[in-house]
């Protein structure tokens, strides 16, 4: 593994200008993913997880746009290239997997046609060579009888099989980075494990970096190497999965961990985080989590904490750093 990260997001800021002023949907997001590494991105609905993925792919719905920061892909800055350049990067260097396999595929084209389209767009293969490659890809993602299935239409596949097709499409051009946005949320629990295992295996084999966006801490714990926790458009904690799960430093992460049911463990009652995430146009000054934080103090209401080294991770919390400073 080289030192250079596949994806390097630096101080990314996304804004949505609207009638009632500009909403900051992503605020100062910095993260990086190395080749072959899987970074889990978790948070509540609306925390900005999917938005981060879309911003990297430059697929934000207008009027949303990148208002600051930089995105580097394999040593090349991509947040300022032209749309035409970006079309060559999408699919070829960044693969995407969407949440709902039932709606991700064009219902009027056979899966083969969609695969061949993607392959031909990103390589010099002839149509017949692309067709062989399409069959290979379907076999790779574990679709039985791929030579036959390649001519079938999306509605002839089950949800799990369709998500395999989506993964095949995402990996068709052997991208450096795959952004998987809730890839298993719409699937049966029994299929979820298969799909995450498949994704993990393929990416490890090819040295592909993965941004795995999900609200399911269980999926992250099983699949990811590192985890980034997001809250109200900000990054609150980022670090190795095992460390963050075992010793979360940010009170919000702690709350998230406390609300996950564990099989076998007898907990009288699952914890919950009181209140709701603030609307993006009404984020309180200081730390965005301060109204819900059980350990809130005056400083949290005035100054916004930056990411700083905590026990085993980076956390955006005054307490985390204090704890470390006092421990040192």
């Amino acid at each position, binding site marked *: 593994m080289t030192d250079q990260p596949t994806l390097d997001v630096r101080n990314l800021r996304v804004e949505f200008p609207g009638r009632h002023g500009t909403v900051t949907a992503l605020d100062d997001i910095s993260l990086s993913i190395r080749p072959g590494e899987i970074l889990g991105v978790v948070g509540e609905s609306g925390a900005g997880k999917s938005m981060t993925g879309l911003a990297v792919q430059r697929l934000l719905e207008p009027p949303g746009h990148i208002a600051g920061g930089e995105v580097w892909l394999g040593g090349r800055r991509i947040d300022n290239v032209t749309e035409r350049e970006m079309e060559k990067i*999408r699919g070829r260097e960044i693969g995407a997997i969407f949440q709902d396999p039932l709606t991700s595929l064009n219902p009027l084209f056979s899966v083969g046609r969609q695969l061949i389209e993607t392959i031909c767009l990103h390589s010099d293969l002839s149509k017949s060579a692309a067709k062989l490659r399409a069959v290979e890809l379907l076999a790779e993602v574990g679709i039985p009888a791929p030579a036959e299935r390649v001519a079938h239409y999306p509605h002839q596949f089950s949800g799990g099989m369709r998500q395999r097709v989506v993964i095949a499409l995402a990996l068709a051009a052997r991208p450096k980075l795959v952004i998987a946005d809730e890839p298993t949320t719409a699937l049966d629990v029994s299929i979820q494990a298969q799909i995450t295992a498949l994704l993990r295996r393929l990416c490890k084999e090819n040295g592909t970096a993965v941004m795995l966006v999900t609200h399911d801490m269980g999926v992250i714990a099983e699949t990811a190497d590192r985890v980034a926790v997001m809250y109200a458009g900000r990054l609150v904690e980022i670090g190795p999965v095992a460390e963050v799960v075992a010793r979360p430093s940010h009170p919000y992460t702690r709350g998230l961990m406390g609300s996950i049911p564990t099989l076998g463990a007898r907990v009288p009652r699952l914890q919950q985080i009181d209140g709701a995430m603030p609307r993006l146009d009404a984020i309180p000054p200081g730390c965005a989590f301060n109204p819900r934080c059980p350990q809130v103090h005056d400083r949290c209401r005035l100054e916004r904490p930056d990411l700083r080294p905590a026990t085993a991770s980076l956390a955006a919390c005054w307490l985390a750093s204090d704890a470390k400073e006092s421990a040192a």
Partner: protein
Amino acid sequence: MIVFLVKRLANAALVMLVVALMAFLIFRFVGDPVQLMVNEQTTQAERDALREGLGLNDPVAVQFLRFVGNAVQGDFGVSYRNQQEVMSLIAERFPATIELVLLATVISLVVGVPLGVITAIHRGTWFSEGLQFLSIIGVSLPSFVIGILLILIFSVILNVLPAFGRGEVVSIGWWTTGLLTQSGRAALILPAVALSLYQITLVMRLVRAEMMEVLRSDFIKFARARGVPRSRVHYVHALRNCLMPVVTMTAMNIGSLIAFALITETVFQWPGMGMLFIQAVTFVDIPVMAAYLCIVSFIFVALNTLVDIAYALIDPRLRAARG
């Protein structure tokens, strides 16, 4: 697929039978055909002979069956007005109307579909809003007003196109076409444009609405995430998903265009079926009216059936469900 075809065809046949019954009833009960065919000097004996000769003394059911039998063979009787075979009258006029309607349809698709796509993609820009506004005018202006305006501009003021008639025509078998002569083509332009204007706006608005819907769907975003260029996403992935309602509407409208071309035909003195019908109404020429009704209905029903079959071809999901 075969079961589906048979079902659709049986359906179509049933509808046609009902239409034929209505046409027959008009034929039979609106006025006395004998009365309309004779003059004051005709004796009662001659009248009775005519009545017998026309089969009007047979039971109604027998008369209806005879009517259907004849109609299927293309025999709708003799025009009261000029004693010509109704079918040959219609055959004479039919090509004019069909050429007009098909050209109008082609214009409406060629202009309407891209305009719909463009206004959907560039919604909110002044260009798109302007087109939207123009299309409201297009929808709300009656076609005879448009026809008269076109005549005023292109025939009277600019004097570049003929204001009426069909120009010179060339016969190919029983079919006559104006497409092969200079004057025929020139004469076709104004009526076709007048007839298509309303259709253009309909197609444009329909495509726009469908496109806006489809462009929001996940598979469009996913196609872009796969690196499919924007124009290909719009014109291949999105547009094909919009085509279903466009095909339906276009096909249905060919029927109504034929039926309602009579306004345009009247304005431009176009020698088509519409004009024939108007003349038939003026002279209470019931066989012509009945034949017109049957033929227009037949075209409607045939188009509807074709639309259903086209659905199955466009959308693989329907193919699977019915095949």
